């Protein structure tokens, strides 16, 4: 079942994420795709996360469609102006890509080409609006298209924004994104379900689907690193302790992720699992969380 169909049939949604390689050897990436195939409704393909130069999202999304896996094409505003963004969206449609996640993108200063010129001609909100226009058969300039797109658009939200003002602003922006056409949201990683529940209460009744983010904790060190460096991510001390004490880190990582995913099932509309290199563990997370019945093999 494709992502859109699952979303429209009110299923609990399960998505995963793969980051393209730095280079052209896609063999490991395609192996990960085969492992996830049939276990998730869609796989997001990232667009140079943390502004580190990599193989492009569109090409990898196209490879996924060849394997009958529904991709979510992540598009950031970091590197392309409005001409390039619109043209790439038309190209993606022609290549069989049907879902887009619109993001602002990290600043190039954070990545491995810090001297690069940041573009940000549009941002996540205006990009969503533009996709809506392409779907309606017009470009940003109002010119008619010979053949429109019909993308399912999504966006992101950071429920763990660390100050009250930052959270207010996240929610105001979320409302703007919904108004601009975001049919689903994939959130930043959630480790504190109570905090997330409070966020969900604030956005109750919003006409969109919310997929809670789960990042597999690979080690206590990774958890501490994220607490220090990743905006809106807070791994509570008790989870860090569980990782420290666990004899089998991989098994513990899967167990924690499954527990979080299971908890999210009662709180929101889906789960977005980011394994960051441990994609092969994702099916086990899905099984242990009791989510596999929702997803069917094509």
């Amino acid at each position, binding site marked *: 079942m494709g992502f859109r169909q699952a979303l429209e049939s009110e299923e609990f949604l399960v998505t995963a994420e793969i980051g393209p390689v730095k280079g052209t050897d896609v063999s490991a990436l395609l192996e990960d795709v085969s492992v996830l195939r049939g276990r998730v409704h869609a796989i997001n393909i990232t667009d140079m996360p943390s502004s580190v130069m990599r193989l492009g999202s569109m090409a990898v999304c196209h490879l996924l469609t060849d394997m009958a896996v529904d991709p979510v094409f992540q598009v950031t505003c970091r590197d392309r102006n409005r001409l390039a963004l619109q043209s790439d969206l038309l190209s993606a449609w022609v290549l069989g890509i049907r879902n887009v996640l619109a993001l602002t993108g990290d600043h190039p200063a*954070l990545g491995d080409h810090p001297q690069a010129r940041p573009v940000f001609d549009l*941002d996540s*909100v205006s990009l969503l609006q533009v996709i809506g226009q392409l779907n309606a058969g017009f470009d940003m300039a109002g010119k008619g298209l010979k053949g429109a797109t019909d993308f399912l658009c999504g966006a992101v939200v950071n429920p763990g924004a660390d100050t009250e*003002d930052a959270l*207010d602003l996240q929610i105001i922006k979320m409302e*703007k994104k919904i108004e601009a056409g975001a049919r689903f949201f994939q959130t930043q990683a959630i480790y504190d379900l109570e905090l997330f529940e409070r966020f969900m209460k604030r956005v109750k009744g919003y006409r969109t689907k919310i997929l809670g983010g789960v990042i597999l904790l690979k080690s206590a060190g990774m958890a501490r690193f994220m607490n220090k460096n990743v*905006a809106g991510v807070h791994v509570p001390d008790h989870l860090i302790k569980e990782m420290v004490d666990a004899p089998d880190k991989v098994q513990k990582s899967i167990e924690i992720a499954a527990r979080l995913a299971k908890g999210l099932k009662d709180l929101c509309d889906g789960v977005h699992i980011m394994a960051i290199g441990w994609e092969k563990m994702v099916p086990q997370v899905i099984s242990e969380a009791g989510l596999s019945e929702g997803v069917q093999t094509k």
Partner: protein
Amino acid sequence: MIAPYKRILILGCSTCTTVCSAGGPKECRELAESLVAGRGDLYVEQDMVPRQCAEKFVARFEGKVRDFEAVLSMACGNGVQVMAKRFPNKPVLPALNTEFIGIEKEPGVWTEMCRACGDCILWRTAGICPVTRCAKGLLNGPCGGSREGRCEVSKDLPCAWQEIYQGLKRLGLTDYLKSGVQIKSWAVHPGRLTKGDEKPKHGLTGVGV
């Protein structure tokens, strides 16, 4: 940059770069001393132009410039270019890197406030420019990258959007944040501006640093 020349005229600028402690008499003198100290064969003189971005002030130095192999300008990029245009047969070299249009936040600290983008929205952003002061120049609210109210690019930078939000809350104008999707119209550069009521004879020169 100055290696090929033995006689150099350092020209400071008495307006903006003097105010910015970058191209005033003191900085010109320090530059002259350090250049001469590093090279025994170098002859350096220094002088101040009242405003290097105005050709009428630059023209006064014609006689002096003739006696030197190169001019080292302590003006902003505008001043260097006006000087280079006025003395097309003389190498005019920039002594400074013009960084931005800023303000002196505290002694010795300058911050960029305005990009001269030509499409001012300060009325709806509590007098804080997100085009300039948000590292991504976002118009529809912050990205998700801020931590403790600081920008993802540097802990030294406050998140402009959190400052805008606080300002709009104080003013009771938070509705501005919610109204409509904002998309910027970028002006064509190089810019050219003509004011009908005082049309200049030789074209306009730009603002200073």
